[in-house]
């Protein structure tokens, strides 16, 4: 087969225009654009934690980096920057998303809630308080994402949306341990606080029920 490939390559100056997927528009033979094209700046306005914010951003800026690097909202964490860990979870227009896999300019007019918008040390959101009580965190790095996700998960269950582990697709799901664990699985905690997070969520879910 391919055998030993000589991989001594000139850096990573690679040809990128060849792919045809993701509704590629360029024909396979299209010229790669000059790599040092000047960045494009664009204005974007959104509501972050209830406040209107307008930023002038490089179009490449993710929502995550807009929050962290332009608004000093560093509660939202960058764990992988590739949608593989969930540390960057925020709630946009009522739905949790990975802010690392979204461009800021795609969120014109959006309402974004970050961990800072849920509560503060002096005025904790019930989920934040439950995480503290049940020790649902250790190093704390995945924690804001876990909490944003946990808040959204209870909403999703309340809306009656099924999950992978729901026995029936048509019955209303309940906030069982198994349901919450499945729905929280997009938030990795390497410290392994899962068992405690489930208990924190159960307490908040129970208080609401």
């Amino acid at each position: 087969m391919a055998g030993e490939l000589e991989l001594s390559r000139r850096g990573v100056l690679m040809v990128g225009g060849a792919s045809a997927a993701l509704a590629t528009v360029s024909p396979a033979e299209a010229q790669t654009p000059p790599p040092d094209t000047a960045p494009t700046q664009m204005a974007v306005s959104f509501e972050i934690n209830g406040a209107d914010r307008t930023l002038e951003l490089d179009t490449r800026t993710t929502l995550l980096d807009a929050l962290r690097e332009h608004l000093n909202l560093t509660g939202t964490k960058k764990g992988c920057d590739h949608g593989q860990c969930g540390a960057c979870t925020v709630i946009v227009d009522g739905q949790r998303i990975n802010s690392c896999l979204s461009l800021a300019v795609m969120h014109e007019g959006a309402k974004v809630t970050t961990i800072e918008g849920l509560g503060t040390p002096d005025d904790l959101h019930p989920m934040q308080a439950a995480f503290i009580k049940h020790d649902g965190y250790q190093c704390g790095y995945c924690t804001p994402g876990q909490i944003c996700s946990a808040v959204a998960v209870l909403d999703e269950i309340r809306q009656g949306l099924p999950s992978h582990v729901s026995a029936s697709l048509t019955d209303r799901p309940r906030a069982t341990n198994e349901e919450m664990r499945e729905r929280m699985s997009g938030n990795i905690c390497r410290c392994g606080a899962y068992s405690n997070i489930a208990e924190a969520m159960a307490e908040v879910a129970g208080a609401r029920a």
Partner: protein
Amino acid sequence: MRPFSYERATTPAAAALAARARPGAKFIAGGTNLLDLMKLQIETPAHLIDVGPLGLDRIEETPEGGLRIGALVSNSDLAGDARVRRDYGVLSRALLAGASGQLRNKATTGGNLLQRTRCPYFYDTAQACNKREPGSGCAAIGGFSRQLAVIGVSDHCIATHPSDMAVAMRVLDAQVETVNAAGETRAIPMAEFHRLPEDRPHIDTVLPPGDLITAVTLPRPIGGTHVYRKVRDRASYAFAVVSVAAVLQRDGTGRVAFGGLAHKPWRVEAAEAALPQGAKAVAAIALAGARPTHENAFKVTLAERTLAAVISDARG
């Protein structure tokens, strides 16, 4: 990530036209796969056309009694739609087995079909990959191939298609609706939509460059028991090692497609005739001609055993 200019699309045809006008342009919808790849410079568009404002986010009933799913319907909304849950359970199940809640909220129906392989050699730009860089070779062959394809492979590529949704769409005989820059629409059967790698693994689908997916249509419901069984190493938030999408009828007949085995959802209609005889009989036909590596040969066994589990469950 290379610099790019950005525009918001107004109509599907205008989007396709704008795409033709700008070399190196790409559509962006949810962005969950494209941005991932742009950060690694595996994708390097010079211009992004955000199709988000097009509003293709409705699920409508068709005159034939099926459903027409807008290309921008999110994976969450599609999985949660009451009609899909009732009549196309295999699709809901497949969607819910994929990715994470956060990703499903952003990922779209059209984008899911067009997501690219998760082959680790495709993702590492220092490694040879004919899919990423045609003619550079395939480092996966002879390398770490446990997750990779066992059937429909070529000497140029052993990548799999990572979608769960597409496997269910395939078993449901869905059609992909597209529009091109001239405003012409097409309906492409799922069976034809994804390609095998052959000697051009850099081309994943038959979608012509510049054409835009506008919807996916489902024929009228076929009843039966809908199952999507996904096997993976951890319990959630992982790509399938092997998956089975099946719609099984009381008389033992049905339809079945496999995920995680090939460059496309793997369905062999001829094998479905053997469903009443059981998984072994189906697998013998469906997986005839499999060419696994020593690392992924277990997938052939696993596919058969997973189908057996599906049949067993469906029979109660």
